[in-house]
């Protein structure tokens, strides 16, 4: 390259935004409107009287003063943090002590024993663990795809005027008490299942797989799972939609610039980019679903049997506690067993949370490293 350039400008790295001579701007400028892009177009700074600097007076504020406010802040945080930890330790400690008779008596076999007989003083959690997982599984299996599809629709396909409305609706949905969802389940979902969906399932899939067959009662794990699913949808949908909106425009443009159609851009580029957000919201949704009590209690049928069909009734840990704990307290072993069930619920949530976090970390690993090393 031999052209004699008469370029006398700044070096190649200077961005337009950065080319403003920052160092020559007096500190006072912090309280003025920012300079125009071209410094030459803006008015020259008037010389300022030296004694009238509020900032400089403020800066005289001593080291000690800063330290004092730092310490105050730290001790406030410490109090808050300690309180939360103490609370958690107390709850856990009380539960462990109260559950001890059951833990001591049944050991690990408590987990896989499916007898639950207060009269014979034999307690096992298996039936309720299975019921809990059925409801949670059906709820998430129903909620996740619908939530993802609806947020893709909202972020990329729906007309603008719909977005605000549906978003408000979602937030309202998330705030409705679960007993209302339970009632809705009884007056709407149960009849719908009983009269239409369950007979349909029985006549189609049910002719080949017993799993879809049943007595078409409406109540059961399917009803409970679907209604809990409805409660989980807003959680997953809101987070997914927010992450979709936050996918950088540059990423989307890159997809289009490679000749992607809109559908390809949405499914192959935007969706993978929001997987971490979806996983996070699914963990939240799992927590909500596994602990849901009132709606499940109204819909699942409350029968201590292990479901063999999607139409069967069942029982979950939380609905059992809600139904029977008032009777259980008078019997030490009975109440110990119920509290141990509660601890199992806590343990499951803890494990799922931890696994989810691990997965997130693994997925986010590259991105985090990138934000440090990129430049």
């Amino acid at each position, binding site marked *: 390259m*031999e052209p004699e350039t008469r*370029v*006398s400008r700044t070096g190649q790295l200077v961005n337009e935004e950065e080319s403003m001579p920052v160092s020559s701007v007096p500190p006072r400028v912090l309280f003025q409107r920012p300079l125009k892009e071209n410094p030459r177009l803006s008015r020259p700074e008037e010389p300022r009287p030296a004694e009238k600097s509020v900032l400089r007076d403020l800066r005289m504020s001593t080291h000690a003063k800063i330290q004092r406010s730092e310490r105050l802040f730290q001790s406030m945080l410490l109090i808050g943090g300690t309180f939360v930890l103490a609370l958690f330790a107390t709850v856990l400690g009380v539960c462990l002590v109260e559950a001890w008779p059951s833990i001591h008596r049944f050991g690990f076999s408590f987990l896989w024993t499916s007898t639950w007989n207060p009269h014979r003083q034999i307690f096992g959690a298996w039936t309720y663990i299975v019921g809990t997982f059925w409801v949670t599984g059906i709820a998430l299996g129903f909620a996740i795809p619908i939530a993802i599809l609806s947020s893709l629709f909202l972020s990329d396909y729906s007309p603008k005027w719909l977005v605000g409305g549906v978003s408000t609706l979602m937030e309202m949905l998330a705030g409705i008490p679960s007993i209302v969802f339970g009632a809705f389940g009884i007056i709407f979902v149960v009849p719908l299942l009983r009269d239409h969906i369950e007979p349909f399932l029985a006549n189609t899939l049910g002719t080949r797989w017993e799993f879809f067959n049943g007595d078409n009662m409406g109540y059961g794990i399917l009803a409970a799972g679907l209604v809990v699913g409805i409660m989980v949808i807003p959680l997953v949908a809101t987070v997914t939609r927010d992450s979709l909106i936050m996918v950088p425009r540059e990423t989307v443009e890159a997809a289009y*610039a490679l000749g992607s159609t809109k559908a390809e851009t949405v499914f192959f580029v935007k969706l993978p*980019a929001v997987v971490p957000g979806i996983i996070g919201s699914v963990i939240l949704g799992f927590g909500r679903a596994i602990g849901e009590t009132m709606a499940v209690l109204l819909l699942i049928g409350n029968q201590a049997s292990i479901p063999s069909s999607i139409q069967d009734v069942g029982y979950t840990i939380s609905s059992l506690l809600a139904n029977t704990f008032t009777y259980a307290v008078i019997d030490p072993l009975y109440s110990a067993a119920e509290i141990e069930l509660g601890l199992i619920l806590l343990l499951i949530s803890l494990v799922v949370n931890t696994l989810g976090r691990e997965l997130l970390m693994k997925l986010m690993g590259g991105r985090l*490293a990138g934000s440090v090393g990129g430049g």
Partner: protein
Amino acid sequence: MDPASDTLVPKIVVKNFSAFYGSVQALHNVDFAICERKITAMIGPSGCGKSTFLRSLNRMNDFVPGFRVEGSVTLDGQELYAPSVNPVLIRQRVGMVFQKPNPFQMSIFENVAYGLRIQGVKSRSVLSDIVEKSLRAAALWDEVKDRLNGGAFSLSGGQQQRLCIARALAVEPEVILLDEPASALDPISTARIEELMQDLKDRYTIAIVTHNMQQAARVSDRTAFFLDGTLVEVNETTKIFTNPEDSRTEDYITGRFG
């Protein structure tokens, strides 16, 4: 420079082209040709319409609400803005590299393979071949060949930008548009990208927007100077930087404004 470069074959021809964002006119009656196997640089002060112009060449502005154009842009004689033209097909022929490196949240391999996959290439061996070829062409292969399954965001900024170039090359476009591709990079990465453009010139038609005039002078064969949405002057780079015809061009390259 190289003597054969005198034969100019127009690849993209722009005639009496105006562009509007709503009621604001960003480009005024631009007449311009981007020639085959040449590097055309576009310079001009910030906001003069360089990006608008570049993005009009592969219809990336279609996504801006209220954007519309007048006049004509043809690629090998085919009108880009004809109603019957599908912009997706245009963008497969006219690739683009952006100012900020914008890899996908995928592995290095999948980033480069993406464009091929959506065009229906399924064979793993074909994909591997093209991915390697593209990464080599983008001068990135040696740095990433042992970590193709690693995340794209673990690369440095300069590497990410070369990955984006490899990704654009993989779909075998005829024209590559670069919008200030080095402005976010350090000097060494910038130099690598400039070298890379020289290598690519034999096979591709390249248009680059830059606000760095030294870069335009170093890499390009032809330079166009834009000002306030009009094309002031376009000519051989040597001519623009030594003996421009328009006084405004001279003012700009000597740093008298901008």
